[in-house]
């Protein structure tokens, strides 16, 4: 999503309020082109969102320094999420955790399935710059926790966008070594996919974008469905 255009900001506010009214538990705003383009998140919209939103929200995209994170948090975001910049400079995780506390430091990981297991990709927001870092996903999950990450969002690239369900095998492997909240991302296509994720117990929360944006799944319906499967949800 592009956040620079005023008209788009209006759309963001409307969307944020709509999801809030549908009882979304948390919103994440991704500016996925920020890192590949070497620019930071434009922060004007964050304060506008914070003014109207009364649920937690996280901002991701091109946050490369303590000062940039501070500006985002001061504008009213609960958390910052870093992905590509953490791969370029892992020490940034330590710096953010020691300055603001682990609870507001989310590390996003784009993980691709390989013949040997899973590896971490960087700059996935731009097809021309997206690259395999050759870092082993499980090793990176351990490292970011040691450095002070308070939450991990694992985006399983092989299942992302294809709506065939979350990558439960990969999430279970990560869950086993993860002592901070783990958010599953990539693959949600039906309410059943969410239920399967929580019943397998391999993530603390589920993130989805396209099925909600397209209206394919309405959040209240999804929550009712999960409730009927005896999964605890806020309604």
């Amino acid at each position, binding site marked *: 999503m592009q956040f620079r255009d005023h008209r788009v900001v209006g759309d963001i506010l409307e969307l944020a309020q709509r999801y809030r009214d549908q009882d979304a538990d948390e919103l994440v705003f991704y500016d996925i082109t920020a890192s590949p383009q070497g620019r930071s998140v434009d922060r004007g919209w964050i304060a506008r969102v914070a003014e109207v939103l*009364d649920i937690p929200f996280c901002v991701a995209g091109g946050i490369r320094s303590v000062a940039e994170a501070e500006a985002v948090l001061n504008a009213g975001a609960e958390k910052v999420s870093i992905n590509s910049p953490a791969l370029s400079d892992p020490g940034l995780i330590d710096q953010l955790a020691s300055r*603001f506390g682990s*609870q507001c430091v989310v590390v996003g990981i784009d993980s691709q399935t390989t013949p040997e297991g899973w590896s971490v990709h960087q700059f996935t927001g731009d097809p021309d710059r997206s690259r395999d870092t050759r870092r082993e996903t499980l090793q990176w999950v351990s490292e970011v926790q040691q450095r002070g990450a308070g939450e991990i969002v694992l985006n399983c690239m092989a299942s992302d966008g294809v709506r065939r369900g979350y990558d439960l095998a990969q999430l279970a492997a990560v869950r086993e070594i993860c002592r901070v909240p783990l958010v599953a991302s990539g693959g949600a296509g039906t309410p059943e996919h969410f239920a399967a994720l929580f019943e397998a117990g391999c993530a603390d929360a589920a993130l989805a974008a396209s099925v909600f944006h397209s209206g394919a799944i309405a959040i209240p319906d999804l929550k009712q469905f999960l409730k009927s499967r005896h999964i605890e949800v806020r309604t």
Partner: protein
Amino acid sequence: MDVAIIDSGGANLASLVYALQRLGAKAVVSDEAAVIRSAPRVLLPGVGSAGNAMARLRAKGLHEVIPQLTQPLLGICLGMQLLFDHSDEGDGPSDGGAGTQCLGIIAGKVARMTATTQLPVPHMGWNQLAVQQDDPLLTGIGSEAWFYFVHSYCAAPGPSTLAQTVYGAPFTSICSLRNFRGVQFHPERSAGPGARLLANFLTLV
């Protein structure tokens, strides 16, 4: 002015300011003793670590001012933890390994939560309250209400516990002693029930 928000350092006072703004309340953010003493109500938020927050309060002499206040005060998250005697947070070598001496208003100490793969720490998410004692802070808030928590430390239930929540073990989610109250969750990020709780606080005298 309806309420003074104590600036205890750290980032993110904005979400609280906006929440009060949505309720039509006039809030002033301050770290000056005179402003805080004369406010009709006081909010003590806190994001960051107990050690940093107490150092900020001490630097302004507020560690002596706050316990003497007689108007309604509400500590939020770390701000609630600071009301207790002591927190384990700040156990690092730079803190002398002894944790952090807090405001000592409510007896008891704040301890680190234990992480397991089933119950990761920080505890992050929406939970409900088991109310132990009625209080005007909870007017109109039913037992089905959900509140948003983000914390790695907590206080065990004790005599001052108004409500508790279970995450592995029960912990104090609301505490109260005289004019001092504290909530472990973030009312400013807890949708309707959070707004109601803040509105209730703004009616306290």
